[in-house]
């Protein structure tokens, strides 16, 4: 009975989060391959969409506003050794991505295979999970990948290209 006896405990629970109209519309939109925001009274397009204007608290018109699907990295970091709770099992980037038409940046994952590819302003597009597997969750987009012509080591990004976009193209009015 070493004096260094250690107590191991695990806290585990499958929480069920109800989403409400705005978050529900956004996440089911992702499930259907479409990215949307909401527009505040002052014209700011919030992505991800919120039920309220974060600056004032006032309610926001919940009408989904199509944005993207492409956008620009504003800041990023590289995760060289992903942990179990990370979204990908190979090195990847977390980034803030301002989608075309959005006033704010979405926090998400960028999978370029090589950190050297990353820079402020990098054009990226979504790599959707296969339609059958997609759920109403932020990770319906598995990751963003380099947009123009596919960057080096862009795991399948280039191939997915326009194809994935057609299903739920951003131009659906």
């Amino acid at each position, binding site marked *: 009975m070493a004096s260094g006896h250690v*107590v191991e405990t695990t806290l585990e629970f*499958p929480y*069920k989060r109800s989403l409400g109209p705005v978050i529900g519309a956004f996440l089911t939109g992702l499930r259907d391959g479409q990215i949307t925001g909401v527009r505040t009274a002052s014209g700011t397009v919030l992505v991800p969409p919120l039920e309220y204007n974060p600056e004032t608290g006032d309610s926001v018109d919940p009408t989904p506003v199509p944005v993207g699907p492409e956008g620009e990295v504003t800041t990023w970091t590289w995760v060289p050794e992903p942990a179990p709770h990370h979204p990908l099992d190979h090195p990847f980037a977390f980034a803030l991505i301002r989608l075309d038409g959005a006033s704010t940046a979405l926090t998400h994952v960028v999978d370029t295979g090589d950190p050297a590819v990353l820079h402020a302003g990098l054009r990226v597009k979504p790599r959707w999970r296969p339609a059958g597997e997609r759920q109403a969750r932020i990770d319906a987009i598995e990751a963003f990948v380099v947009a123009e012509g596919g960057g080096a080591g862009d795991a399948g990004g280039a191939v997915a290209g326009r194809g994935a976009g057609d299903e739920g193209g951003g131009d659906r009015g």
Partner: protein
Amino acid sequence: MADDKVVAEDLVMEQKVTLHYSEPLPPNFVRFGEGLLAGKFIGARCPSCGRVYVPDRGYCPLCAVMMSAADELEVDDKGVVASYTVITPVNYYGQTKTEPFVFASILLDDTTTVMRGQDITGIPTEQVHAGLRVAAVWLPPEERSLEGISARGGASLEGSVTSFAPTGEPDLSEDAYRGYEF
């Protein structure tokens, strides 16, 4: 233009949260655990007020003085039921208990300490009552472990003492355990 496909059940997202904790037992609980494995209750007497706590928490909360191994002593594993209830297990994620169990607070003899949350066996549940004289029912030494002791002060005896059982001695009156019904 909320999408009509968005029906109520779609609007729930499951998020399983799993967190692992590993915390060393404080020295006082290690000594208490070693006592349990040896079939003994180790308590501690406050140097300022003389109250005896089991287990030793490392301090007396009433005098606000720290305590150490020097204040520790062995305490008898007998006592009296000060208060109790019978818990009908409610099902929830991770709950394994299914049968009702007694949850009793035992005031240990010659101490000012309650061993909370003890099961009472050797008597039909409906006959359990405050004032009942009981003694600890120990697991055989080789089956004992420090399962129940947590670093946050929760010192359940699960790993060594399965329950308390009547000793057959006459009941004690309420003034013997008044002030220990928590």
